[in-house]
């Protein structure tokens, strides 16, 4: 009996660690069998390109969640980035991108400051930015969508290098960097420590506040990058709609990927696969032409199952 329970424990532990990957594989197999025209390079390309912005935002979100925080402002940051781009595109696409990312960094500094130095709860600090940020973007853009024509800039969203879409390359590079940051830098180790026990980290002399500001800055910057890429892909700056509900998609990807919301742990690869999983779910539902009602219910069920499998045994 006890060996059986041990076996069970092993299986659960395995599922916890590899559940997302398994789910992605299962869903891929399902689609290969049941979805028409699924096995094509173009299709995989589409899925990867669509997953890229969520994935990038989710990477930043994973770091924030690792510190026991949450960043609800990412969608609004994307929209601010989008609103700024047409204003600076005349000075070259690089300038526009730099300005947009700077805006992301500034808003990250802002929420980081609120959380770290004023001690405001992350969810509420970033909620304020979620509400106000999009308004700000719309004010900047006069509520207008602006069509973009700059070739260089549009290349970001549509071009590719050696057959791989630029957006996918950017996402992959950022994922690798995020992985390195978490595993191999003091900053990364500090951030999980801060998430694991903030009081103890403070007493251990860690630069807790700087670490907190750092993660929000990274999250803001990544959200801005995602905003830039999505804008380029859309060939238009659309501050009203860009990144709507992105915070929820990103959090879902992170949690489905096995990073607990209670902090103290970050799974970068899991996050990437979490984003891919949600993308595949989405694609599957569309390709099978399920009505919106069913699609939402199915998504709900899949989130619950995925998180159930990946949950920490004793996390709240």
């Amino acid at each position, binding site marked *: 009996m*006890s060996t059986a329970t041990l076996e069970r*424990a092993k299986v659960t532990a395995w599922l916890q660690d590899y559940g997302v990957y398994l789910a992605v594989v299962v869903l891929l197999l399902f689609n290969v069998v049941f979805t028409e025209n699924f096995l094509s390079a173009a299709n995989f390309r589409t899925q990867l390109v669509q997953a890229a912005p969520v994935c990038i935002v989710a990477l930043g979100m994973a770091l924030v969640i690792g510190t026991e925080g949450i960043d609800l402002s990412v969608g609004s940051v994307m929209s601010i980035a989008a609103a700024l781009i047409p204003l600076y595109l005349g000075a070259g696409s690089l300038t526009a991108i730099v300005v947009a990312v700077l805006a992301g960094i500034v808003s990250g500094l802002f929420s980081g400051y609120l959380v770290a130095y004023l001690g405001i709860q992350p969810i509420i600090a970033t909620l304020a930015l979620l509400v106000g940020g999009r308004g700000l973007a719309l004010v900047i853009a006069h509520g207008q969508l602006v069509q973009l024509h700059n070739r260089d800039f549009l290349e970001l969203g549509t071009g590719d290098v050696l057959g791989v879409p630029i957006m996918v390359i950017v996402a992959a590079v950022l994922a690798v960097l995020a992985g390195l940051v978490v595993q191999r*830098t003091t900053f990364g180790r500090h951030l999980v420590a801060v998430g*694991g026990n903030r009081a103890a980290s403070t007493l*251990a*002399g860690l630069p807790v506040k700087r670490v907190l500001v750092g993660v929000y800055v990274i999250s803001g910057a990544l959200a801005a990058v995602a905003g830039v890429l999505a804008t380029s892909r859309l060939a238009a700056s659309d501050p009203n709609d860009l990144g709507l509900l992105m915070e929820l998609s990103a959090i879902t990807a992170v949690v489905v990927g096995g990073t607990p919301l209670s902090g103290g742990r970050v799974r970068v690869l899991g996050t990437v696969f979490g984003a891919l999983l949600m993308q595949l779910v989405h694609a599957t539902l569309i390709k099978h032409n399920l009505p919106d009602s069913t699609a939402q219910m199915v998504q709900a069920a899949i989130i619950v199952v995925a998180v159930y499998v990946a949950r920490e045994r004793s996390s709240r």
Partner: protein
Amino acid sequence: MTAATEEDVAMTTAPVLEVTGVTKRFPGTLALDDVGFVLRPGEVHALVGENGAGKSTLIKVLTGVYQPDEGEVRHLGEPVTFKRPIDAQRAGISTIYQEVNLVPLMSIAGNVFLGREPRTRTGLVDWSKMYAEARELLKGYGIDDDVKRPLHTLGVGAQQMVALARAVSTDAKVVIMDEPTSSLEPREVETLFEVLNRLHAEGIAIVYVSHRMDELYRVCDSVTVLRDGRVVHSGPLKPLPRIELVSLMLGREIRQIREEGVTAFGEEHDVEREPLLKAEGLSGLRKLHDVSVSIRPGEVVGLAGLLGSGRSETARAIVGAFPLDGGSVLLAGKPLKRGKIAQAVRAGIALLAEDRKTDGIIPNLSVRENIVLAALPTLSPFGLVSKAKQDKIVKIFMERLRIKAAGPEQKVSELSGGNQQKVLLARWLATGPKILLLDEPTRGIDVGAKAEVQALIDELAQEGLGVLLISSELEELIDGSDRVVVLRDGSAVGELTGDRITEENVLTAIAAESTGGDNDVHRHP
């Protein structure tokens, strides 16, 4: 506490609680291995063993926190399965767990009566009655505070007393106490023993876990010794010589232990003249009033005082973890910025905090990561983590402090309490500090490890470190310190050096002119 006849009675009556063949596995650890344990009515049963021997685990199995993998639990002869702690409580088993488990933001009274609040006829919680009863009850435990205050405004020791009051007031038939005295100071230990006596007189069975030998022999009738998850001895305590008990726990020869003595502190240290650390005029939050402490290299300075006298605050203030209104801290003549802990740590000051659960371990992280945490910047050139360097440090300290874990990658939260404490000590030693502030460093540590830690403190002082030692165990403080600063109500009221450091002098200094008159009565021998 027991007469022979009483003992005989105890032996013949049916057990209130009995476990047979209990095995509990955790990934990588066999915490309990075929354990049998019998608790008879009216006895005080000591449960002893080294850190990580399985005491807390056994208690958790008894009270439904864990389910045993094998074996059975019997209550009053009937096999039972306690699925949750509440099942055990309903069966009349009340427990004080090793770490204080109360609700910090809730009022003191609320904590005492949580889950069984007195109610009015309409079924609503009767607050005034609850406050009155709580006030009455807690008086018996030496707590005179406003019971409406949130619990966390009490010191750890007082919280422990609240937990005790709560556990005892539930009309339990069995009371289980996992290291209840580890955070109490002598006066409170006395209060605890009074309570124990009362319970004993009422025929309530008690399981008592402690690493302090004196206490065990004072209050316990019988003993069960655990070693590595197995029962190595069970029987009456009194006939068992102390030295033999220790040898059973450690699994070492008696002769070997004899050589080691009571505390492992050596002689006076060579103390340099110039203080390395000077804290002057520390004041803040009405907890500290103009406290000055200096520590020379190679010196162990003891901080004595009652609970709440401001010892912890003093230590925290030195590293900058306590907001100050006035005062300064100078390290080697250079002032430290107030409130900058990171700067203090970098300058070589280390604080081993009192409450390891909230201020110490990072539960999710591994033993390895917990050890290297504070030293990380120095081990990581350009902010990049070097695993090889870490491994070396971790290996050294796990061996030196004999940390018992499945391996460096085990989660620290899975370690026994004492081993967690060692991990924290390792964390600070790994930073190569100049000044060590130790707030209750041996709390919850078994005899063997305690001696090791004490020897280590000695050795570190020998090597030139300045140590500030806070301990509620007078013996430890007196043996270990070269100088003792006595605090009372947040002020330094005396300093003892050399031969003047005796138990009597310290106690006199602590109690003299004390405002609460009944302290004096208690103190003076």
